[in-house]
């Protein structure tokens, strides 16, 4: 019986079922550090997005969770123990990895049957997951002839095979058409709603904004944020307030301060940063000024992400050295 839990207090983390816990997880290839001291917890009941630019170390981290790559240092456990120590690993974690993990000459059906056999799973369950992902028509055909979207569906079928309590999916919407993307999104949310741990990587903040509730953001292998989607928007970028008033110059002078930026693109228009919309309204009332518009411009998730990873993107269009680190706003690192 899985009890859904929706983000309980941090102190109970160790007692939660179906959790991924990384502690100081590090992976080096020669002198290149792919993953650098990652500490995070992925909790059940919600979709957790794993976000970072290409080359940030997302796939490496996921492979370490699955025991495919050994960490240089640090540990990662699933449900309290390393993946390798699970007697029924496919039931602990179902995974869809970025690169296809299917023999191209084998049919989808036989691929799933071979995986199922390692855990003594009946062929009826194989038929079930084939139906679930909608591959009935092509299940007996060579997987090598599959389109990218069909390949992703087969990957998801194998991830769901043993009805796992944790799902790890690396860029699951890559190559899918809008209908397929919507299908994955709904699937992930319903799997999480059943109380499972769902950990999904993406380099697209826009996709994560629609799917995930919690985000773990990494750049150059380092943890940059471990936060809810809402908190990320609120915290990572300053909010701009658009003010439209006939007495723009007067209001602008009144708002001026050390941490406040006021800019104007039209005679009656101000773009204010550093002051909350409510405060601007109060100032205007005190001065008896008329406001025609007072709009906080919520920074989009994409902007928040760009802000956060600007210095940490592995491959810049223009070569800019990345000095220092951005302070992670980590919640579960404590």
């Amino acid at each position, binding site marked *: 019986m*899985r009890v859904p839990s929706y983000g309980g207090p941090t102190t109970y983390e160790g007692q939660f079922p179906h959790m991924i816990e990384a502690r100081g997880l590090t992976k080096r290839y020669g002198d290149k550090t792919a993953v650098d001291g990652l500490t995070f917890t992925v909790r059940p009941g919600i979709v957790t997005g794993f976000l970072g630019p290409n080359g940030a170390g997302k796939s490496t981290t996921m492979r370490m969770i699955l025991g*495919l790559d050994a960490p240089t240092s640090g540990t990662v456990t699933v449900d309290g123990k390393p993946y390798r120590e699970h007697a029924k690993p496919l039931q602990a974690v179902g995974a869809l990895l970025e690169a*296809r993990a299917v*023999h191209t000459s084998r049919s989808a059906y036989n691929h799933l049957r071979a995986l199922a056999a390692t855990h003594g*799973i009946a062929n009826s369950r194989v038929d079930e997951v084939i139906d679930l992902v909608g591959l009935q028509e092509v299940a007996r055909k060579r997987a090598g002839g599959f389109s990218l979207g069909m390949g992703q569906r087969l990957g998801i079928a194998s991830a769901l095979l043993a*009805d796992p309590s944790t799902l790890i999916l690396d860029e699951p919407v890559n190559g899918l058409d809008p209908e397929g993307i919507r299908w994955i999104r709904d699937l992930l949310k319903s799997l999480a*709603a059943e109380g499972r741990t769902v950990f999904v990587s993406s380099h697209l903040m826009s996709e994560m904004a629609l799917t995930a509730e919690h985000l773990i953001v990494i750049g150059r292998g380092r943890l940059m944020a471990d936060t809810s989607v809402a908190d990320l928007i609120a915290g990572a970028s300053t909010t701009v307030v658009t003010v439209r008033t006939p007495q723009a110059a007067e209001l602008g002078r009144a708002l001026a301060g050390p941490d406040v930026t006021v800019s104007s693109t039209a005679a009656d228009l101000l773009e204010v940063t550093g002051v909350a919309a409510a405060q601007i309204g109060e100032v205007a009332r005190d001065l008896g000024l008329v406001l025609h518009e007072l709009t906080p411009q919520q920074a989009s998730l994409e902007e928040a992400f760009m802000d956060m990873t600007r210095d940490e993107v592995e491959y810049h269009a223009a070569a800019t050295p990345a000095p220092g680190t951005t302070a992670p706003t980590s919640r579960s690192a404590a």
Partner: protein
Amino acid sequence: MTAGSHVAVAPAPSRATVAVSPVSQRRVLVSEWIKMRSLRSTGFTLLAAVVAMIGIGWIVGAATNSHWSSMDPRELAGFEPIGRSLAGVNLAQLAIGVLGVLFISGEYATGMIRATFSAVPTRLPVIWAKAALFAAVTFVLMLVSAFVAFLGGQHFLASHGTTLSAPHAVRAIVAVAVYLTLIGVFAVALGFILRSTAGGIATLFGLLLVLPGIGQVLPASWQTHTLPYLPSNAGSSMFTVVQDNPSALSPGTGLFVLCLWVAAALVAAAVLVRRRDA
């Protein structure tokens, strides 16, 4: 954060419980059996090995019989009917070796190995299952093929042939099957060690075919201490009926030496597969 939004977005699929058993060596063996049978290349390559083993034995038998009167005395002096009918072993070992490497390298090339090692994260059961399965299939198939090659070969040799009751006949036939089985397992281990089809096949053929040739240019005193211990020479001493090479190993020693090669390759494969990132 509340659950409300999730539940509203998509209805939860039914959670009928799926019966899942712990991973065991036996279950991994079943899985590998499914994998082996579900690739068309397995059938084709095994068929090639069978055809090579039987076809060459029969053709050599028929050709020898029809040219008997024109064979020169030296050739006649060295004539040995059992070995002639089993000459296909040289070609069959290539088919078996290629298939053994492919059985593993195919998984690395396609990325399947990540699915395999996700399902069996301790990894070693996969090596043992693949090696045991490949050994069993090769042995059964090649034992039957060697018998058929022998019987047909003797039939085509007609009056120059011999029978199963001849000295060393059964030993040679079984030894051919054992040799091909050990070469097959050796190839499986090479597949795990090198992870690439080209590298695995090149290494195997280098060891079986090229190294003995290179060894010929060594000083004679070195040759006697090295060449007999190469896998191919140790193997052929197992099934050679009339041994004309004085430095060759005895059949029993040959089997022992070849087993050492295979064991060393399997141990290396196990160590590397456990240690390396998949």
